[in-house]
């Protein structure tokens, strides 16, 4: 996804543009930009309201209050709280997958690509506790439509690990089973979710060495995996 050309670049760099607030003190914006931005404000408002009240406890009034828009504006963009949540979920997951993909592609070899990808994921989630909660915890509460998306999103990380099979010896390949990658991704995501539920989102990045060692061990053996995990 290309950065939103209507947003100031410093914001686009730090914060998912879809979730940034209307810049203070700017007026006389073209109508189209305001409309586009109202949607973003509603999504950010939803994330804040959920962080405060949980998904079930969140009402449209909470969302519009956090977004500082009218109820009518809400209904111009979304027909329900569920629909707003789906939009928010997709926005956050797209951003997260983008960050992970960029980090993974920028590394020199597969083990370091995995490490960079996990680091990017932890950094994104730790820096955005409301969004982390929205996409890793509340998504499961938000009804079947979102749960399906959540399952698919988790499974979408499987191919990053599967690519680690390329070029491995027969001996290593014999140790891997068809479900190895699913179990690695599931284990990693489960640990991250549990830390978020426990209110320890800000500390997520300290999990990096453990998660790198856990996920690389089946492919590299535990000694080499531990070495990559603990490199600076």
């Amino acid at each position, binding site marked *: 996804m290309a950065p939103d050309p209507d947003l100031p670049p410093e914001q686009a760099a730090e914060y998912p543009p879809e979730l940034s607030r209307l810049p203070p003190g700017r007026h006389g914006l073209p109508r189209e930009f305001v409309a586009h931005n109202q949607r973003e404000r509603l999504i950010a408002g939803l994330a804040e309201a959920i962080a405060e009240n949980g998904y079930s406890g969140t009402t449209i009034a909470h969302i519009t209050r956090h977004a500082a828009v009218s109820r009518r504006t809400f209904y111009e963009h979304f027909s329900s709280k569920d629909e707003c949540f789906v939009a928010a979920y997709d926005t956050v997951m797209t951003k997260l997958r983008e960050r992970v993909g960029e980090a993974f592609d920028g590394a020199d070899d597969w083990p370091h690509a995995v490490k960079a990808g996990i680091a990017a994921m932890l950094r994104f989630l730790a820096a955005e506790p409301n969004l982390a909660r929205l996409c890793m915890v509340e998504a499961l509460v938000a009804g079947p439509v979102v749960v399906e998306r959540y399952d698919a999103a988790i499974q979408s990380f499987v191919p990053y690990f599967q690519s680690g099979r390329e070029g491995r010896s027969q001996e290593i390949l014999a*140790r891997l089973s068809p479900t190895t990658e699913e179990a690695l991704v*599931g284990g990693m995501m489960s640990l991250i979710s*549990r830390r978020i539920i426990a209110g320890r989102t800000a500390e997520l990045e300290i999990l990096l060495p453990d*998660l790198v060692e856990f996920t690389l061990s089946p492919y590299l053996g535990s000694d080499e995996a531990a070495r990559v995990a603990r490199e600076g």
Partner: protein
Amino acid sequence: MRPPPGRQPLSKEFIAQHQRARIIAALAEETVTQGYRAVTVADIVRRAGIARNTFYDNFSSKEDCFLAASEFGATEALRRVAAAAAEFDTWPARVNAGLAAFLHHVATEPALARTCIVEALSAGPAAVERYERSIQSFVQLFRLGRKVSPQGEELPDTLEETIVGGLFWIIYQRIVIGQVGQIEELLPELVEFSLTPYIGAEAAKRVAAEQPRTTAG
């Protein structure tokens, strides 16, 4: 209800226990059919074939009933895991037997499994907290593996959480895609996945090749 002739009348406690179990089973079946959010007390009452008052004699609400179902499912699973593991002397063999019993339980009680492993995550904070406690119990069982591992405490701190999380994710996925009936086929690879960090790939493969199911079933 009159007791059959020549038998002691059933105790109040027995009837109450039986009713609770029946209501819990009804909740699980309704949850599987329509998802937890949509289930009403009326659905549960109809499915269980009891009076509405009987439901409220046992539970204060749908949520209360759901928590009881989670409690029952989790306690029963752990009891079976412990019983199966107790038949073996070494930790790796105990893991193999315990996991076999767990998968068998999940495969034979699919409605309860779905309620406890899939729906619990969306059933509110108390249900999530109960789920979390189950995970924690399994984490403790895996931690015992550090005593037989040459790396011992050098293993990553979070290893057990990631192993248990991985196992539950695989089971969750199979339930969601409707393949929970075949879940026992995954036993060897899941045992290997769980044991390799502690005892190495070769030893884990050997343990996983032994079939403990005959005694655990």
